[in-house]
């Protein structure tokens, strides 16, 4: 049997658009001409109804009565349903129970759906849903992480990872610092709000068009709420207008509501959320309260660490167990903690159930150790970059607090390279000089690394399937379990397939993700899309190739090792057969031209009992150097320059990867700077739209942004063409901006005081840090 040209670079003369080359997003023209269809753009089926829900106005209460007469009487209303009208499962919790599709008796957050309406227009449904008269008996509501910690209210048990004897190490360390931080949450703000279109089938099942990262879960939950076997429900995702984790579990409740209404009316139902409803009703990134207690020597080398991360999970578990786990796995970021304890709490609050968001808890965990790095540096009077470099994992100091060995030491060299290419030392000197004389504006600089573990920490999710079909004209369709949300997964998988057959990319099309093509798929999440689905597609190609080579060997009486695929041809000994002729011949000779493929990530395991294992196949790495300018009168700031060097292994598509890096960085910067979720004391979200919730706008993009991929850095693991995952890791590059803001403020105290700066670091919080620095200075003068 022949071996695939797997993991070999693309030949010099080759087909166009293969893996390793930049190729446009498969929908690029459709995007720029408005012809790409999202759920709300699909042609309207006959007799279409529109859904809306009425939601709880109390954070925690018992429903005493619900009068829906005015809702039913509203013009255009066709059906109104409550929890009592759910024929199958009421609970649609994705991993653990706790999420009723419609609240029954008890409500646990403001915005929780309590009944659903189907009407003849979107507007009619929304207007009607506001007319219910609901009587509540208020119950005690817990809103913040601190309140939940005080009451020991958790959605899942707390968990500890420990290595060695941290208490002893802390007690014996020459220096010891303690600190705390509040890290804000984040609204996904995908530009396309949650949406689905559900059509009843002739068999009493449902066909679901959904904007979801997890069509298999949508399929399963719709089947469960209707009490149907899974095969009666199929789900399709062509594309999402952004996901970022917000459509991993949060799309399913809409599909379930729409399916229930479709079931009740026997009519197709479309359900899309207005922006305000989307922001109120769907989960967000967890905000965290973190603490550190760190011991270190006089060089700043960490001897021991005791870290605590506590996430606001909201009212139900959703994915919070794994999210807080990932925060714990990343509380070390890139640093060897030596003797270490990491404790993670999953706090229950009467707020919306927080959910996956790019980084999945990892960013919030990293924030505590990055704060500590800055604080250690200020304490010792050192440049924070030196402390960060000193503490990096390196051979001999390469075991994490959960027992995984860091095998690929990429960051030391990567950071050195970035330090040089960004002129870090020279700019550091210039900035320090500038800050001495500038009366109002102060500049700050920071270079921070990211090390991010790649694999789902829920082991069973690390599997994928694909289908590859070659048609008789040589054109190819690939279908896989991954979903397209703008990240370019479809084009990357198409490039993998084109590379496997060495044909032009235009010959390969990726079709919409559907549960009746590839079943039991994992969510497109954890940055795993191309790692998993690329490998599954490659497996399918390999199976087809095996059959084709076998056929060609016999048909042309040529040894298999003399048969190669190159530049849209099959080279058979001395004969070059054009691809389409070859495929036609294979078809006429009854050779299978399609196959399924499968992939399961090797090597990974984790034991939650002991808190040890190898949860990740490998780590993705990167670093960012950001420079900011801060107004010490107002706290306003701008990011003036950012240099990024990021490790994507051997890139499948460099331009697409750079897009992920830049977009991730800006999204991470937004999370830590202007994006502020404000809740009232009663648990009501007050920032319910883009007028009050400010994601980065065009002027927030650093005017000088230099992004590069780490060259010659193939993944040492056998991933698809030795690439590395790129979806989530760059988000955490935004931490450089936050650290640079602290650096600018620290200049007020000649870098002796490390100012507290909770996130998001809005101008108000930055001015608060400035004021804290000024107070510290005044105190120093008093004591002097």
């Amino acid at each position, binding site marked *: 049997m022949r071996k695939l040209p797997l993991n070999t670079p693309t030949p010099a003369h080759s087909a166009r658009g293969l893996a390793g080359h930049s190729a446009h997003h498969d929908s690029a023209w459709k995007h720029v001409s408005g012809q*790409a269809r999202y759920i709300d753009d699909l042609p309207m089926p006959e007799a279409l109804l529109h859904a809306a829900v009425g939601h709880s106005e109390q954070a925690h209460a018992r429903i005493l009565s619900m009068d829906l007469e005015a809702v039913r009487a509203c013009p255009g209303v066709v059906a109104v349903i409550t929890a009592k009208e759910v024929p199958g499962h009421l609970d649609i919790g994705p991993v653990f129970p706790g999420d009723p599709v419609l609240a029954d008796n008890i409500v646990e957050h403001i915005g929780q759906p309590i009944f659903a309406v189907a009407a003849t227009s979107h507007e009619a449904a929304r207007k009607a849903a506001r007319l219910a008269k609901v009587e509540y008996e208020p119950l005690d509501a817990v809103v913040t992480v601190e309140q939940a910690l005080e009451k020991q209210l958790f959605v899942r048990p707390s968990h500890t990872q420990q290595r060695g004897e941290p208490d002893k190490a802390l007690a014996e360390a020459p220096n010891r610092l303690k600190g705390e931080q509040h890290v804000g949450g984040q609204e996904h*703000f995908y530009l396309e709000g949650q949406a689905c279109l559900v059509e009843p089938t002739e068999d009493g099942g449902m066909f679901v068009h959904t904007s979801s990262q997890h069509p298999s879960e949508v399929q399963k939950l719709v089947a469960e709420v209707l009490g149907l076997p899974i095969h009666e429900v199929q789900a399709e995702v062509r594309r999402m207008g952004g996901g970022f984790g917000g459509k991993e579990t949060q799309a399913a409740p809409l599909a379930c509501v729409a399916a229930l209404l479709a079931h009740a009316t026997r009519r197709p139902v479309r359900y899309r959320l207005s922006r305000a409803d989307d922001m109120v009703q769907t989960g967000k990134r967890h905000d965290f309260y973190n603490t550190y207690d760190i011991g270190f020597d006089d060089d700043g080398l960490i001897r021991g660490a005791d870290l605590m991360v506590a996430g606001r999970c909201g009212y139900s578990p959703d994915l919070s167990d794994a999210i807080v786990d990932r925060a714990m796995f990343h509380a070390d970021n890139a640093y060897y903690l030596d003797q270490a304890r990491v404790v993670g709490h999953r706090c229950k609050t009467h707020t919306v159930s927080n959910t996956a968001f790019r980084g999945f808890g990892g960013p919030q965990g990293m924030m505590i150790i990055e704060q500590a790095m800055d604080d250690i540096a200020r304490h010792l009077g050192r440049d924070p970059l030196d402390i960060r470099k000193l503490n990096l994992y390196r051979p001999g100091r390469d075991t994490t607090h959960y027992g995984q060995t860091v095998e690929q030491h990429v960051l030391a060299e990567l950071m050195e390279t970035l330090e040089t290419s960004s002129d870090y030392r020279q700019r550091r000197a210039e900035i320090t000089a500038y800050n001495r004389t500038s009366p109002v504006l102060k500049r700050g600089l920071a270079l921070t690394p990211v090390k991010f573990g790649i694999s789902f920490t829920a082991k069973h999710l690390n599997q994928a399937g694909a289908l590859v079909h070659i048609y008789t004209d040589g054109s190819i369709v690939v279908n896989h379990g991954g979903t397209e949300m*703008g990240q370019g997964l479809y084009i990357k998988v198409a490039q993998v397939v084109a590379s496997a057959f060495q044909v032009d990319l235009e010959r390969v099309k990726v079709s919409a993700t559907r549960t009746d093509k590839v079943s039991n798929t994992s969510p497109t999440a954890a940055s795993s899309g191309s790692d998993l689905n690329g490998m599954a597609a490659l497996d399918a190609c390999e199976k087809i190739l095996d059959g084709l080579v076998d056929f060609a060997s016999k048909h042309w009486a040529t040894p298999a090792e003399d048969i190669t695929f190159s530049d849209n041809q099959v080279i058979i000994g001395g004969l070059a057969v054009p691809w389409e002729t070859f495929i036609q011949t294979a078809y006429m000779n009854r050779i299978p031209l399609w196959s399924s493929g499968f992939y399961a990530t090797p090597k990974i395991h984790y034991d939650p009992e002991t808190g040890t294992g190898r949860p990740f196949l490998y780590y993705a790495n990167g670093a960012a150097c950001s420079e900011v300018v801060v107004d010490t*009168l107002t706290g306003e700031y701008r990011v003036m320059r950012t240099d990024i060097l990021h490790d994507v292994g051997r890139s499948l598509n460099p331009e697409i990867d750079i897009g992920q890096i830049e977009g991730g960085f*800006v999204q991470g910067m937004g999370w830590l700077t*202007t994006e*502020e979720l404000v809740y009232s004391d009663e648990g009501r979200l007050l920032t319910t739209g883009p007028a009050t919730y400010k*994601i*980065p706008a065009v002027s927030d*993009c650093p005017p000088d942004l230099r992004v590069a991929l780490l060259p010659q850095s193939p993944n040492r693991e056998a991933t698809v063409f030795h690439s590395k995952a790129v979806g989530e890791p760059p988000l955490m590059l935004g931490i450089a901006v936050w650290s640079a803001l602290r650096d600018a403020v620290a200049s007020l105290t000649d870098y002796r005081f490390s100012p507290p700066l909770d996130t998001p670091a809005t101008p108000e919080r930055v001015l608060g840090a400035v004021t804290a620095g000024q107070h510290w200075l005044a105190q120093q003068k008093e004591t002097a």
Partner: protein
Amino acid sequence: MIEFLLNGQMEKVDQVDPNLSILEWLRTKMRLTGTKEGCASGDCGACTVITGTPDRDGNIQYEAINSCISLLGSLHGKELITVDAFQQEPGHPVQRAMMEKYGAQCGFCTPGIVMSLIALHAHKEGMDPNDHQLLEALSGNLCRCTGYRPIIDAGRQALVQEWTPEPSHPAASLCGTSANPELAGIPGGSVSSGTTDGLRYDAPATLAELRELRRNFPESRLVAGSTDLALEITQQLKTLPHLISVERVDELKGCAQEGDELVIGAAATYQQFRGPLSKLWPAFDPMVERLGSLQIRNRGTLGGNIANASPIGDMPPPLIALGATLVLDGPEGERRLPLEDFFHGYKQTDLKAGEFVHSVRVPVPAANEQLYIYKISKRLDDDISAVLGAFRLTVDNGVVADCRLAFGGMAATPARAHKAEAALKGQPWNEASVAAAITALASDFSPLTDVRASAAYRLQVAGNLLRRALLASDANTSEPLMVTDYA
């Protein structure tokens, strides 16, 4: 009935629901779904379309607007150009550049970004396109995927390329080579339309007609650019029974100097009055650039910003600082009052039944008068102010001869800081006097804590803005004082 051109084709719409937005009409009535709804509040730009409005000379002014908060009725006599006009490959240079620079990822915001850039491209003749204009053109378009760098690069590339469409191209009129005769054929004058269930939309063409309508329908609501009013429809789901648009009343759209006053009509848009006003008082220019987005400034009007009576409207504080006069009109005729007397309380004004804002009279600068306007918000682009400080100072020989300090975001209305003014007047213009004025500010105002800022931050920043003005007035200072000045 209203008449307009949609991508070159005449559309005549009868029984216009005054609550119907252009976006809703496009997507649900026409099933033209290229234009997206991202927020329905004019904050994200996914719904951006281009309108072409004939000016008094018959030239068509093409502008990017938010179709989600613009009313269908406002289209009478205009051209509407949507992304659907650009479905033929190879497309507009903007589309090519967006592809070549990888400017789209999920693609949902992309049609709006393409339309904003095409609108800018249509204006590139005679201008030297620079990054500043590019960023301004994109300030109202949110993208959550790319981080904007490739979009900026695409804009740079497209702006130096020509677009030469076939005359039959649905958006060929953007090139100004083929003015559509059908547009000129649409009847001028007033417009009135209504639905069978009694909803009504009026757009009078003269002041006299407007007065008459206001007299007959004092319960009607006035609308200009609808950048705020439409939120009642799209966010609060209200049905507004009767809207009267001032958009077609030429007498309300002027912007010209009369003696020692600049008279700005209530229906003049931000983009229309920004130039003349900034020429007199340059401090307005950077502030107006951060007031909403370009799409908002193409529709929003001075009269709307004032009559809306929001405590965080950005135009009233500087106009109050300048001592501007407000001209009201109505069934009982015209009357004038100082702008600061117009605001009675939160969203309460001196407007009487049937009255409307006619114009604002802004004094021209006198000797030694300086104006400082500082806007503070979480985000630099398209954000509502936490605090806006506007200070008009007359400093003679280092002494504050006169001053008016007005703030937004510090009270239930835009308001002057009388105690702080008193603390400054007659005092040397120095740190000690400013410190005294800052102390006085705390007795002038008891601001609120809300989603934009805390009370403490508002007070601290309000005071620090006076410090900034002091530093800015120092002729010896060449160092930038604000992050927006820093390059």
